[in-house]
């Protein structure tokens, strides 16, 4: 890091000011994020069972354990990426549709807006517990309704793909409104003139949306996708509360896998090794997305 103050007087003063502004934040990040990451990295190279912390160096053995764990390769990673993809894409589509619908004056708008803010106030873990209750196979309202109309209920949370769908659905419920709010803010800051011109030309609504709204909104959309994708990758609360990774660890996502290995199966080193692998994947993805973002920012 370039923390050394320069010899040049004027520069030095500015640099000192810059450093002073970030010192408190940097200190907290160092003690609460950097040091744990360093310690976690070190732990991932050791033999560290929570009931017997020998802490002997074992090289890459833990990484090998994780990467040859069939559950990690065939269940956890596919689940994580499928979850990320479906959650982000569907939330984006719903969020965008709602943002466009909200971007006009109508009666009851305040009310709709408040309803859409609800998922942002509810703790993800409560939302997930609530969904678990709603989709309960015996007493859940969804099955009661399905039975009543004669379709017949499903044992939602005890089959892999239905349980996975409920997890995705919960995440969409939680985050689609977040997309709506950000995109609505974006829509409202768009210039008025192109829309007026299109109106005078008699363009259809769909073409206006496709060729005006969407391209002008692109930078905001991309920022939203980047933020959400990174957050979706590390989803924990929802899965923990809904299925606990079950049935038979079939719906585990990456964060829950690392947590379970460390604190349920007490293999702290394997858990941290899994967590490190996830961190590397998302860092690479994050840097790529950052590049894309840079291009978009320059382009607009």
């Amino acid at each position: 890091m370039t923390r050394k103050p320069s010899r040049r007087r004027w520069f030095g003063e500015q640099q000192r000011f810059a450093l002073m502004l970030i010192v408190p934040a940097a200190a907290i990040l160092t003690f609460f994020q950097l040091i744990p990451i360093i310690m976690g990295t070190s732990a991932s190279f050791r033999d560290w069972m929570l009931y017997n912390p020998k802490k002997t160096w074992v090289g890459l053995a833990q990484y090998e354990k994780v990467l040859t764990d069939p559950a990690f390769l065939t269940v956890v990673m596919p689940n994580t990426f499928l979850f990320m993809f479906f959650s982000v894409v569907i939330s984006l589509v719903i969020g965008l549709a709602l943002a466009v619908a909200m971007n006009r004056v109508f009666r009851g708008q305040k009310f709709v807006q408040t309803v859409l803010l609800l998922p942002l106030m509810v703790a993800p873990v409560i939302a997930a517990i609530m969904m678990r209750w709603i989709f309960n196979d015996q007493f859940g309202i969804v099955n009661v309704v399905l039975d009543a109309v004669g379709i017949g209920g499903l044992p939602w949370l005890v089959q892999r793909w239905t349980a996975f769908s409920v997890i995705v659905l919960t995440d969409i419920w939680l985050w689609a409104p977040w997309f709506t709010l950000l995109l609505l803010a974006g829509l409202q800051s768009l210039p008025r003139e192109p829309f007026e011109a299109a109106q005078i030309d008699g363009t259809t609504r769909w073409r206006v949306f496709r060729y005006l709204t969407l391209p002008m909104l692109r930078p905001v959309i991309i920022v939203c996708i980047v933020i959400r994708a990174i957050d979706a990758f590390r989803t924990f609360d929802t899965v923990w509360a809904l299925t606990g990774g079950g049935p038979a660890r079939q719906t585990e996502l990456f964060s829950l896998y690392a947590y379970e290995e460390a604190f349920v199966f007490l293999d702290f080193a394997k858990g941290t090794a899994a967590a490190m692998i996830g961190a590397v994947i998302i860092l690479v993805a994050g840097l790529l997305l950052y590049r894309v973002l840079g291009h978009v920012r320059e382009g607009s």
Partner: protein
Amino acid sequence: MNKVQHSIFAAFTPGARRLPFIVGMSITCFLFAFPVLWLILTSVRPESDIYYVYKGTNFTLDNFRQVLDNPRVTLAFFNSAVVATVATFFSILVTVSSGYMLSRLKGPIARTWFGTIYALRCVPFVTWVLPLYFVEQQYGLYDTYTGLFLAHVAVHICFFSWLMKGFFDGIDPAMEHAALIDGCTRWGAFLRVALPSAIPAISALSVLSWLFSWNEFLFALILSGQHTPLTTVVMAQFVSEMGMQWNLMAATAVLALVPAFLLTLFGQKYVLRGLKI
């Protein structure tokens, strides 16, 4: 003004015809409100009727009395409020200056700092919260307020610095330059000129920060023990370790929702204004 906006956007919003719009909006509202309504309904049903929430007409406030009589629940509410409030205060304190620096100062320090917080924001929580458990035990911070709220501040720093930078980017630095020319120090320009104009952003981030800490679960699960139970964890325990007490879980959840709802209601306009990226 509203009229003009109405005519332009009404004509250009796909599906702006009246009836389908109203029906669509009603369904949307219903779907988004349903889990919360169901939670509230569950919380006022007596334990005997809990498995048939949808039928029967017995309603009771007994669940609320029961959870409020439980010292662990009230302690959890108190703890969550303290942690959320203190975390918000410190988050804002450190991210205002950090965001200001990212916006106003160029050069290697700013670039390094921006790269650092971007990378640290990408790192999944689980990667650092697992070892943080041991680190906090070494610092003697495990299961204390300090250990919890500083971890929350660490979560906020990266994202909020980024948002703050965005806000300051939107504020013309000409006023600060004028202040500097008039003999103000850099700190004076920051504290007396830039800071007051950032108050809307600060309000928005305060609301978001408080909601995040109030609702946070993973850190609470790992970093808190007997002394500092937090609401989310206590609530989740109603439907796992202590058996399936859906009514008590729902009552606790509804109580937890009240401050979040009030805060959002009052902070709504700041958040909406502040969410522009």
